[in-house]
């Protein structure tokens, strides 16, 4: 019989492996890479993103957007005569796994462009690899401002409002609602660069907007924490009138459910990333009156292009597209437009074509700023509705009209970005 100590050794190794790298998820992701390559009438693009864990829904729906965009390109005849293949892998929200995935995609699959990931910490690590190999990298989910400043290169593109823009939009909305009234505010955010940067950005924006606030509590639970009652109790004890929450995905769903069980929403207005995915998961449990912000809420774009995309997405995947899917799709559109315009898949050609260009996407013509390759997007804020979206979609969206924070009001100027890039 095998000695128990041997089992314990194996169990410990497995537990530590699982904790450190999410080995089950990464193995599953590696297995899903589908080959490809630059030759033989096809060209490969890669999406290394988070497909397991508490933020997996962001990565999975983002990947759906990328895959649908590639399918649409192929249905229209391909790109420079080649079919576009998408290879994907799970990074388990771990930088080392993300880097390994990207290296495999570039060296074995010969990917010519990369998309993803979810976590900014993973994005910063992957960016080093793609920069070194002159491969264009499109960040359509991770949005830390450091990605286009500290680790920026001409091969990096961010088509998502960054960690300065997003909280500024929420602060602008709040300033408009308060009209000078004094309020108490608490903050709640995952304990890593995105969460801390977003909270810092929000506080700075409140100051800039001259909001008359008192900061009564700040809590930073770990990303993916299953039990947050201690943090919630600390927030509740501080009796804030508003809570700015930078959580997202499954973490925000868990927060909402646990906060509701403590009665927090009856006393406090929560401002958080209540996007389509989160609202869809919450269903009728979505806290009416809470304030949501979203990078690309499809229901605020009343255009035939967006309506067609939503219908197509619903037909293929059964649900309306989340912001992650919409921005993933738009990122591939940007890359494809640059390839078509330059007549080349090379990173240098794609970079030159996109820098400063206005690119047609499902979000309309999107200007890509030449100083930092930030797409000039608005951020949207709105109050959660008490009613379902329609008789066929039980998701509680926002009340109309949503508040739009335009790019030039919430983004750093080029001079500010270039100062941070040095």
């Amino acid at each position, binding site marked *: 019989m*095998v000695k128990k100590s041997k089992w314990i050794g*194996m169990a410990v190794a497995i537990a530590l492996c699982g904790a450190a790298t999410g080995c089950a998820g990464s193995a599953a992701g590696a297995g899903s890479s589908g080959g490809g390559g630059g030759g033989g009438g096809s060209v490969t693009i890669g999406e290394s993103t988070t497909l397991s864990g508490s933020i997996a829904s962001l990565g999975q729906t983002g990947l759906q957007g990328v895959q649908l965009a590639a399918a649409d390109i192929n249905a229209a005849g391909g790109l420079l005569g080649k079919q576009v293949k998408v290879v994907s892998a799970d990074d388990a929200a771990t930088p080392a796994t993300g880097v390994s995935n990207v290296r495999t995609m570039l060296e074995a699959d010969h990917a010519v462009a990369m998309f993803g990931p979810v976590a900014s910490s993973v994005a910063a690590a992957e960016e080093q690899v793609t920069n070194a190999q002159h491969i264009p990298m499109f960040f359509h989910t991770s949005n830390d401002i450091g990605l286009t400043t500290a680790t920026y290169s001409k091969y990096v593109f961010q088509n998502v409002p960054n960690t300065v823009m997003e909280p500024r939009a929420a602060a602008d909305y709040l300033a408009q609602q308060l009209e000078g009234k004094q309020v108490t505010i608490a903050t709640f955010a995952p304990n890593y660069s995105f969460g801390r940067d977003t909270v810092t950005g929000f506080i700075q924006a409140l100051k800039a907007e001259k909001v008359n606030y008192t900061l009564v509590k700040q809590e930073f639970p770990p990303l993916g924490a299953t039990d947050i009652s201690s943090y919630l109790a600390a927030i509740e004890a501080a009796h804030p009138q508003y809570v700015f929450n930078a959580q997202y995905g499954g973490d925000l769903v868990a927060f909402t459910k646990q906060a509701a069980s403590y009665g927090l929403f009856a006393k406090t207005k929560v401002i958080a990333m209540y996007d389509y995915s989160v609202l869809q998961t919450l269903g009728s449990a979505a806290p009416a009156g809470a304030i949501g912000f979203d990078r690309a809420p499809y229901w605020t774009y009343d255009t035939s292009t967006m309506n067609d995309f939503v219908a197509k997405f619903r037909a293929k995947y059964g649900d309306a597209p989340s912001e992650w899917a919409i921005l993933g799709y738009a990122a591939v559109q940007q890359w494809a437009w640059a390839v078509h315009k330059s007549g080349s898949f090379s990173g240098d050609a794609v970079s030159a074509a996109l820098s400063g260009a206005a690119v047609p996407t499902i979000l309309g013509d999107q200007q890509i700023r030449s100083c930092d390759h930030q797409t000039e997007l608005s951020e949207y804020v709105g109050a959660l509705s008490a009613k379902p979206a329609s008789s066929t979609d039980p998701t509680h969206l926002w009340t109309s009209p949503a508040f739009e924070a335009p790019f030039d009001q919430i983004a750093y100027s080029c001079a500010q970005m270039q100062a941070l890039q040095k």
Partner: protein
Amino acid sequence: MDTFVTETVSILTNAAILFIVSAGLTLVFGALRLINMAHGSLFMIGALLAASLASALGGAWGFCVAVLVAAIAVAALGTGVEVAVLRRLHQREPLAQLLATFAFVLVFADLAQRVWGSSDRSVTAPVAGRLHLAGATVPEYNLVVIGIAGLVALGLWLLLARTATGWRVRAAVEDPESLAAGGTNLPLLRTSVFALGAGLAGLAGAAIAPLESIGPGLDTQIIVAAFIVTVAGGLGSVLGAALGALVIATVESLGTLWVPAYASSAPYLVMILVLAVRPWGLFGVPER
């Protein structure tokens, strides 16, 4: 005082879920000498099944039915896994068994994605009220979860200490050859224990559904915590699983309160400490 009450309820709720999951894992190890890597997958499937059924049935009773059906369905799934694959590997080296259960992790992850999709799901708690104790707010559903764990503990104690089947389960750990020579159907006993362990994983997943976002990734999240509890408590010991769950939940919660920067690594430090001092775990038995 209110912080003490809040922390106590939080610790007991966490410990309750960890205990139900870890009790199943440790029972399976005790009777089959098998570490089931797919135990977290069974937890996830229990949660997803409960979410679907509770949504279809609606209401508090619908949720109760969903929890029971999810636990039974996952137990049936576990039976199938044991009979179809694991039974054939019982005499093989541990690594082969471990890899087989790891393969099920991947299979179940893909299966879950195909059946339930990539979107997270949400379940409404059957009771949404709150109690006010010593100035603290206590969600009623947390007390329900603690109660379920209490019933599971009582049931396992009665089964293992007061029934002939329980005696055989314990004997299967100590001396399976003699037990078989005495006429006990060992394969059936092992299958039954595996089904019970799987059912407990499913029950825990269903019970936690109203507190969490239910979706992909639940499997890897819980299996790591369950391993830590099981190893710290002593592989094969249900009492160890209970105490281990309480210790790990306490360390997590108090770590969050006092040293938040180190809270996530605290359970691993406890496991390392236990292994250094008592390599067989708090309630395990050293090999002779």
